[in-house]
């Protein structure tokens, strides 16, 4: 924790080790959807994880775009949209 404080004041530059970076990357990897990437026997290459993270983010953004479009069309056509919204969310 003291690492964070000194870094925030930018007095010195505490070296965050490669190992810690790799550990962070591993944690990141666990969050990604397991698309055929389950627990490789050896180490998962850090750059690979980052690449997949990039494409995952891009996919999610694209989905947000598509869903926004659909929502826009749907909201346009219904008048009682608000009741429908609440109803649909309650029926998750």
């Amino acid at each position, binding site marked *: 924790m003291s690492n964070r404080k000194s870094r925030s004041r930018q007095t010195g530059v505490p070296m965050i080790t490669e190992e810690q*970076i790799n550990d*962070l*990357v591993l944690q*990141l990897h666990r969050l990604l959807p397991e698309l055929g990437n389950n627990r490789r026997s050896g180490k998962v290459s850090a750059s690979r994880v980052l690449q997949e993270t*990039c494409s995952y983010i891009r996919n999610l953004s694209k989905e947000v775009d598509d*869903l926004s479009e659909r*929502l826009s069309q749907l909201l346009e056509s219904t008048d009682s949209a608000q009741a429908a*919204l609440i*109803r*649909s969310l309650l029926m998750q």
Partner: protein
Amino acid sequence: MASADKLINTDVPEKDVFALHFLQSLSNLKTQNPLNSPAKSIDRVRKIKKAAYVSMARAAGGTSRLWSRALLRRAAKDDNKSVRFSRRKRKVTWKISSKRRKSNNQRAPVVEEAAERLRNLVPGGGGMETSKLMEETAHYIKCLSMQVKVMQCLVDGLSQK
């Protein structure tokens, strides 16, 4: 692995929080733009998309996260408003100039290259150090997927009518 304190905190709020914020944004949109006004469809889509991102940032903790802060800032700039930042206990200079960042980061260049691409995707990533970037990315991914789920539920519910 002596990195117990480096565990990324990826607690995101429940889905309901995201849903609530998004619904509020949407209803605000509706009151601002009555349905019979001849708005172009692209504008509506863009507004909804922006509402999605802003409500996601708010649901995720508002100004307490670097990425959400950057997102809200960007959105507020578009609207020519100003964002209020909550007081933080410790002073964090959350914007590191890229020159300084480059000198800080002596990592494997392969990792750095991929991290650079990631920086372009995560809001506010340009000023983050690599380790901070990892944390923010993790949180961002979780929130984004939550937001997508919420929107999907909405769409499904509306199309069933």
